[in-house]
């Protein structure tokens, strides 16, 4: 499925300064039962966000109206655990287009890239800085510039560059997906398949 193009994103951000946020927290398994990609944002961080009687937990950041924006900033090792793409779908469906952390789990990072959510890995020091600036001013904006591969704290001008491979960058800029690419080389794949030993 082709997705939204990503170019430059300027937005305030939602801070979640917890380490090892696993995909069972992002979306618990009991909410994975849909057969369509719809409505996963409602259950993003379900058990951190809601009590068992479905009332909101007021201390959780998504329930705090002073924080908003299209950027989610998480602690180290964000997205560890299960391969469920539903976690990335939930992040997207809730309205985030970018997740910033000092370290991402592999599968979650891949899943994000495959659906048009940009994972931006920054240094631990820069991540601390982002958390501090947001704490002081929840309306502070970040700029994510994909063509330049930079992330900037607009209030202080502090900037860091981030890595993304050229192929995925092109895909994100244009909203292309891998299946289109693969379908275009299908003849090569079929030829390759004839010579595999297994």
């Amino acid at each position, binding site marked *: 499925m082709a997705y939204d193009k990503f170019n430059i994103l300027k937005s305030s951000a939602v801070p979640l*300064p917890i*380490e090892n946020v696993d995909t069972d*927290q992002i979306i618990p398994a009991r909410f994975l*039962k849909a057969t369509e990609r719809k409505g996963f944002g409602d259950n993003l961080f379900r058990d951190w966000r809601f009590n068992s009687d479905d009332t909101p937990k007021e201390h959780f950041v998504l329930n705090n109206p002073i924080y908003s924006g299209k950027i989610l900033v998480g*602690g180290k090792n964000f997205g*560890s655990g299960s391969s469920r793409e539903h976690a990335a779908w939930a992040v997207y469906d809730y309205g985030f287009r970018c997740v910033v952390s000092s370290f991402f789990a592999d599968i979650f990072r891949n899943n994000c890239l495959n659906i048009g959510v940009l994972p931006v890995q920054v240094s631990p020091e820069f991540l601390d800085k982002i958390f501090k600036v947001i704490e002081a001013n929840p309306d502070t904006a970040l700029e994510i510039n994909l063509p330049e591969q930079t992330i900037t704290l607009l209030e202080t001008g502090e900037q860091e560059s981030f890595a993304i491979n050229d192929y995925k960058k092109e895909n994100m800029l244009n909203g292309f997906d891998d299946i289109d690419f693969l379908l275009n080389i299908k003849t090569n*794949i079929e030829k390759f398949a004839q010579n595999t*030993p*297994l």
Partner: protein
Amino acid sequence: MSKTLFDKVWDSHVVQHIENGPDVLFIDRHLVHEVTSPVAFLGLKNRGIKVLYPERTFATADHNTPTINQHLPVKDKLSANQLKALEENSKAHNIPYWGLGHEKNGIVHVIGPENGITVPGATIVCGDSHTSTHGAFGAIAFGIGTSEVEMVLSTQCIMQPKPKSMRINIDGELNRAVTPKDVALFIISKLTTSGATGYFVEYSGEVFRNMSMEGRMTVCNLSIEMGARGGMIAPDQKTFNYIQGLEYAPKGEAWNKAMAYWEQLHTDEGASFDKEISFNASEIEPMITYGTNPGMGMGIQKDIPQAEAVEGGAATYKKSLEYMAFNEGDAMIGKPIDFVFLGSCTNGRIEDFRAFASIIKGRRKADNVTAWLVPGSHRVEEAIKEEGILDILHEAGFELREPGCSACLAMNDDKIPAGKYAVSTSNRNFEGRQGPGARTLLASPLVAAAAAVTGKVTDPRELMELQEA
């Protein structure tokens, strides 16, 4: 040029390399289950395309399924709907489907090896992170997201950059009551849950060479819990013996051809890894976790570490202990427990039931414990009966359930209630993993058995000594 085992398998599956981008990797075997596939099949439908190689694709139902009364219709409507979707999609695309009640039904990572689908040197993927299990056979096996499931269904390829390589070597002899699960939990406790992120791991050394295929599967299964893309072990005679004669394994001339390929599957002398780590087997004790990620584990006789002594954020550590209602400095031994879960793709194989039975034999299930013993497949269930293990379980007051993922992930009816403690042989102790508010202690089948008969965290060596005395 000297190559690693991983290089040999990966490089021989690259259809195309994209400069400063991913490799197009050909996938030999694709395992499919009900939870992560429906949206992928929908994608194919929207594009108007069929599965390219249905003969390389295998489907089973495991995550959602109940583990009692499987002959009755599935009560949960959403689960039933997902199961129906997989059945229909499999039919529409000519994929073998081993649904509820089928003799080959079971957990996807248990039935792949059982049926000879898992073979050395293959690339194997599934929309499930514990696909790393199949690395036990010298395959490159890893979990993928649903977008990638759609890629494999439609083109039999995925696009990923080649991961870095790591070798974890353990020589020496394992201590008494130390199982493959303990070896894996030990490694994760040393590396943390992100210590191998970005890497594909090869396990080498005496300990893994001496392990059974079941044990190797348990170790490779847990590779993902230290962040690794996957883990693998070089195939040897034990591997070939396991596979030969299984339904989907190569036969006749195809077997000879496959063997010629498989016999080269080892890391060459002098091949280099991006990272190498070594441990000695004697360092490893029976393990248990006390926190909310699999890296928060320790020898069962130890006390819960102080926040200052652990790497990473003290705030996150304290939040974790608060969830578990444990304190820094607490001993784990003697902590009362409520549930025991034996099963999952980590420890749901026959060897795990043998280990469990060895401890509970001649004892009684503790009254305060609810025990869910769930075979990984119907084959495992059959073996439990054939070997007389079922009688031992019954005599000790235990029941055997029907195959499935069960209480590993709280997506079916088997959920641990809020606040309750479960000693679990599964793979994740994340908050809410076994049910909202549930508290999980990951451990081996031996530790689970010791807890099941004593009603508290107990060192299995104590019970073994009594048996031997």
